[in-house]
């Protein structure tokens, strides 16, 4: 296996999943509690990466990162480098690509918190944000872990966006999925198989942990069922 590609992939997935927790919580909060009448448009936009061909997303990200776009120019003036075909560019593309995999579980678990608990918290003098921190977040642990794990696993396996935004630079943008593609191109099937099998097993393990947690571990139902102390 290509260890350089492996560590790059893990680093990318970890950075993206961590950033998505930070970005996804406020977005999910807004989606859960906003009463704006056009909210559904934002919901659709957030869900777009699920249905969009990765090449389409990758293409627009590439355009947005390029030295002719405001973002690209600003980054260049800041760092002296372009964003396209760099690790940072890859992170931006992956953030967009995996956004729904974090936001949707977050929003679902926030929405599942009983409204009467929020009202009780308000009557006890807590602002909506304090209530969110002390009631909603602790009761949404399962959703937060699910969102983190899904966006990690989803980033681990992405191909189209990486190829469009990052290209195939060893040690910078060559992830495991690109590596597999390279090996197949070079008719190196047994090596491709080892990497592919590895990704398959890891993805399966991550999803098993997520579903197991939701079933037996951190689900809200366990607050009611299991003797806690």
């Amino acid at each position, binding site marked *: 296996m290509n260890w350089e590609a492996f560590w790059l992939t893990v680093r990318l997935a970890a950075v993206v999943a961590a950033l998505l927790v930070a970005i996804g919580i406020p977005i999910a909060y807004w989606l859960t509690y906003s009463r704006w009448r056009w909210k559904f448009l934002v919901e659709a936009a957030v869900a777009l990466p699920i249905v969009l061909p990765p090449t389409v997303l990758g293409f627009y990200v590439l355009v947005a990162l390029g030295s002719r776009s405001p973002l690209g120019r600003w980054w260049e003036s800041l760092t002296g480098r372009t964003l396209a075909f760099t690790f940072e560019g890859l992170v931006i593309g992956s953030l967009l690509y995996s956004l729904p995999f974090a936001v949707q579980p977050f929003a679902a678990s926030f929405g599942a918190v*009983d409204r*009467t*608990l929020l*009202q*009780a*918290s*308000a*009557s*006890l*003098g*807590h*602002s*909506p944000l*304090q*209530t969110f921190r*002390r*009631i909603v977040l*602790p*009761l949404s642990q399962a959703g937060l872990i699910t969102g983190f794990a899904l966006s990690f696993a989803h980033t681990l396996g992405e191909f189209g966006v990486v190829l469009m935004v990052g290209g195939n630079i060893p040690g910078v943008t060559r992830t495991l999925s690109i590596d597999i593609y390279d090996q197949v191109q070079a008719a190196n099937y047994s090596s491709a198989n080892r990497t592919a099998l590895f990704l398959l097993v890891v993805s399966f393990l991550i999803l098993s942990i997520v579903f197991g947690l939701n079933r037996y571990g951190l689900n*809200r139902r366990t*607050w*009611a*069922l299991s*003797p*806690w*102390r």
Partner: protein
Amino acid sequence: MAVKVPLAPPAAPTMSPLPISSDLEVRIRKRFPHPEGSFLLNVHFRALAGFTILFGASGAGKTTLLDCIAGLVDPDDGRIVVGGEDFYDAEKKLNVAAWKRNIGYVHQDLALFPHLTAEENVAYGLRKLSRAERQTSSREMLQAFHIEHLRDRRPAQISGGERQRVALARSLVTEPRALLLDEPLSALDRPTKSSLVGDLRKWNQNHRVPILFVTHNGEEVFALGDEVVMLDGGKIVAQGLPHDVMRAPRLETVANLAGFENIFDASVRALHEARGTMTCHLRKGTVELETPLVRAEVGSLLRVGIQAGDLLLATEEPHGLSARNILPGTIRRLAQRDVIVAAIIECGGTDFEVHLTLAARDALQLRPGKAVWVVVKTHSCHLMGI
């Protein structure tokens, strides 16, 4: 419950000074969708410090009214003033957020935080205090409500009655300006109820805030014995002491709730305008009752409600009584409920339920099969249209 009352009263030195008295005035209109057409809540009342009971059937608008006062639901129009401070005023476009109102609200299903222990739940509202002060206050409150031993348990691990105590303690520890209780006793058995009400009254002696107590249980209204506001279909239909409000039913739904043990369909036989009464024939059997006169025609159908406690029983035919209805009958059954005896008496094909004391049963040597006379005062008969 034989639990030792803590030495220190719930009012502790760490607590902030409070106004001597505060009252609550609500005048609101709120329309909202309802399965049977849209529903308008339109009420105006004042509640002084102490208990005020909001009584009405489910769907009468009780919970919506509490939600408006707590700031969880916005009224369409009106004004809400608590302790001299405006919380909502449609004219001034004023609407204080729920979390700034400091109104205690014990929700019908308690809404305890499932991930926090009993003590953490109680301390939750003491956000602004230091950790030590929080602990002192919440421990005192746990003590006052006899749940100190549960402080490390989570809501799922304690009984329904204990949860109710935790929920009350959690609201009271914040020293609210007013307390809203949405059927807080509905799930409790009678001894637990009265001990909890006792603890609440004790707390309120030191605090003197208005307590709005919602119930649809007529028995609770009499047990609490305070001012009653009766709601029906979003409107206040009666207000006053339980005795006045509950014994002058205007609507059949209200009468059903107010605990009339005897409800009979009847038809009007004759009107006695000069005496202010009329004769009604109970449809099941041969009994005729002299009832108060209402606007009705001979032959029209009515429903007669009589409370079992308003009926008298005699073992010999009574003479020289002012009561107009003296019905001969036979005891069919006697059943003891707490300290009262419910007797079922058959009179001319109609069963009456009569409530007596244990002493009366023994003195009169009542037993099934015995011949008795049921005495019904004219004004104990309440009439309702069908």
